């Protein structure tokens, strides 16, 4: 990917909703506003979503009927607003798209390859 292409790609992502997972397992969902080479990522109107803890999972599993495929439980979410996520703590980044717009295709299909 050359420099122009890269910049174009990054600019195209601006204001899209990102899901950024950090090293401690939390996910931050917010609008992508800014990034640099690290990559530190700035998200606006962010919600923090926390994975249920082991204990919660166990409790929930105990409650569901045996043999059920899914466990229904609450995730914990808080509104945080504008946040900066340092690049070193980022584990995973996802971008949200409307299913109706992508029609089953992956517009980021080449995302995994260099």
């Amino acid at each position, binding site marked *: *990917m050359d420099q122009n292409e*890269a*910049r174009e*790609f*990054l600019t195209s*992502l*601006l*204001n899209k909703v990102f*899901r950024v*997972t*950090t090293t*401690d397992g*939390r*996910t*931050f*969902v917010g609008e992508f*506003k*800014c990034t*640099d*080479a690290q990559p530190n990522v*700035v998200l606006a*109107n962010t919600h923090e979503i*926390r994975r*249920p*803890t082991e*204990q919660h999972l166990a409790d929930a599993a105990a409650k569901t009927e045996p043999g059920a495929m*899914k*466990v229904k*439980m*609450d*995730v*914990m*979410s*808080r*509104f*945080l*607003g*504008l*946040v*900066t*996520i*340092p690049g070193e*703590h*980022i*584990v*995973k*980044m*996802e971008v*949200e*798209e*409307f*299913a*109706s717009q*992508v029609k*089953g295709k*992956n*517009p980021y299909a080449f*995302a*995994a390859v*260099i």
Partner: protein
Amino acid sequence: MAGPAMAAPFVVEASQPNLNLEDVNVPKDSQSRPTPPHPPQAPPGSIVAFDITSKFRHAVQTLGPGEIVKDGFFTLHESVSALEIMDPKMDSGCLEHGETLDVDYDVTQALLPEEVVGIIDQLLCHEMAWHLGYPLSQTVLTCVYIESILVPQPATLEEAHFIRDPNKATSSPMHTVLRAYCLGLLKACGQVNAKIINEHYYEEEDFVTNTYNRDLLDDFSVEAICQVLRHATALLDDLSESVPQPVTDALRHRLLLRHTLLGAVDSLQERNDPSFVRASWQRPCREALSNVGRIKETHALGRPVPAAFSAKLQRRLASTMPPRPIVHLSFDDAFGHLLRLLKDGIETANVLDYHDSQSLQTFVMMFQAAKPQPLVFVRSLLQGFLFKDMEILGGMSIRQLLDDDLSMLVLPSSVLLDRANDEVETPHDPRFIIAEQMEYFRQKAAQPFLDILRTFCQNRCRVRRTFCHVVRDWDNLQSDADDMDQILQYQTGDKPIPRALPDGSTIATYARPLWSWVFLYKLKQMEWIVFLGFELEVYQPDELAGMYYFLHELANVHLQHIGHIRNALLHNIGAIRGGPRPHVVPPPDAQLARSLTFIHYEEVDASNTMYLAQALSCLYVALHRLSLLRRPRRPYGTDELRYELRMKPFLGISDPRPPSFAEFEACTTMAEYSTDDLLDTAAQCAMAAKKGLESMSKLSEKDCFAVGSYEQWTQRVKSALKSGIATSLAVSMVQKALARPGRDGNLNISVEVPRPEKAYHEWWIVPQVRALSA
């Protein structure tokens, strides 16, 4: 890879009841925080997420150092306010290694009755700490039981329980009692919050109204919660066999307190009828007050359960603040505040007994001058009683109050305040023009006039600060009033009133009642600003000479102005008795007599202030000259800069102008007087002030316009009198020391300037002179 279950961050199907915590109930007030946006909630399947981690990482690698890609509308300035995730100082969700968000405390575990007493008492401490100004996050919301009741938000009252699981909800009476108390507490907090938000207060300075998106049971009625409390109380009766009597009694008293207070606060919506407020607010408060003693007695029965409180719970609140330590207020302190809250609460309803506008002002002043100041909830109550729905004390219009004040101060039985004027419809009739002008004046004067009362309800620092602003409004009002007076005196055919000057000549001036009224209030406020400067230790000890001199100057103008008002009043009496004048209302002499009494009272008050200020000013100058008080070294300031700072509130005021720096310097050094002269003057002035204060302290409550707050008023006058006596003593000690100096010329006395709270009266800082043993 489209599909919600795959794309969602977790492979659990997420129903998100917690998310509706973001729906904050929007308080009516503008001071409320903005509502956070709703969390992303789209119908399942409509949103897909694509992993771009590696592509993103590769793309950013092409960026040079310092280069960024950003949205055009996003400014870096904004980004300064962004929270840095994983920074333990900024990120409240950042957990220590090995730390979990879970609180390992099981709310379903069985509780001993003693433990319930312990938890309740701890909650009481937290509640009072909140009243003192700590946020809910560090107090009430650190309780695991409270958190479990509030989260997820209960839809029904049955759900408002820390044990939601119907299988586990055993019918343990102790859980029922604790839950009832918690509900009562939360509802009370919600009520208190709503009361405070509706009045004027300073967020985070006085009080933190933030509930961190927790709904304090706003959806449930007071009656429903009272019902829960009653039910729990009834349950206690059945426990007499299994639980020792003192413990059930302890629990009963605690539930009763909650029950009484809930009903009482709820009744405050009504205040038109003082007798109703007395029955539904003051009486329950008195009952609670007589009951709380038992709570204190039984505190020792409780067994604390520290594990039921955790600072970790703060991580779940809608707050960007990392957890702060739990506030620990001792039970005795908390109990002291509760007692004070109840007492002040009862006292504040007495404001509804309106006698006259000056008594009302005295009441508010005295009530707020108490040390320590009443809690912010009580101050909000007082504001509610005074101003709610733009009705004064629940039944008076602003006009009534204003007219009452005008008639008392400057316009007794005056045609200007005659309500019949409003009925005149001929535009050329003087009465029509009078009514029009007076209405115009009222419109301008109402806000500054009410501001005086409102200002006194703030915290002490804010009282002074706000007066510095309000006094400018009064200054503007004064020139408007002057114009209106001219129109009015033409309409009423007022003649100039001859007035003897001290030099023997006479001048004729118009009565100018509106101008006089405004000027009088302006002078009072200027004096209050200086007085509060002493109380709040704004002035350094070496500045006291200058500031008491300035106060003396203000009081002097005040006194002269009272002379003018009295002259006009007396002339009016003469004119009314001398013969009928057009449009004069037949004089109810009571109004005139009341005005004269008030003017007499004001005169004594102003002259006391003048004399005592002069005495202290002279004394301080003398002490500096004798090097008994020293100025601290101030390498970074000059006297002139400091003078400017002190006079800042008064610089914008046209009349009276503050002295120039040269005049101020001259009067704080008084170079032309010898030290002996200064001390003589101080002694004489202190004596005059003492006499004045003595006579003042003997006034009846009607003559000193302190109906309803007479006790506090007398106390304050007596404190001032003590200050006068102390000034006399200090002066005579210095005089004696001067007359008989020690062998090497030493005076053998030491002087100390006390702090305001150590002085007899916080407005009169009298130096303490002590003889040194030779």
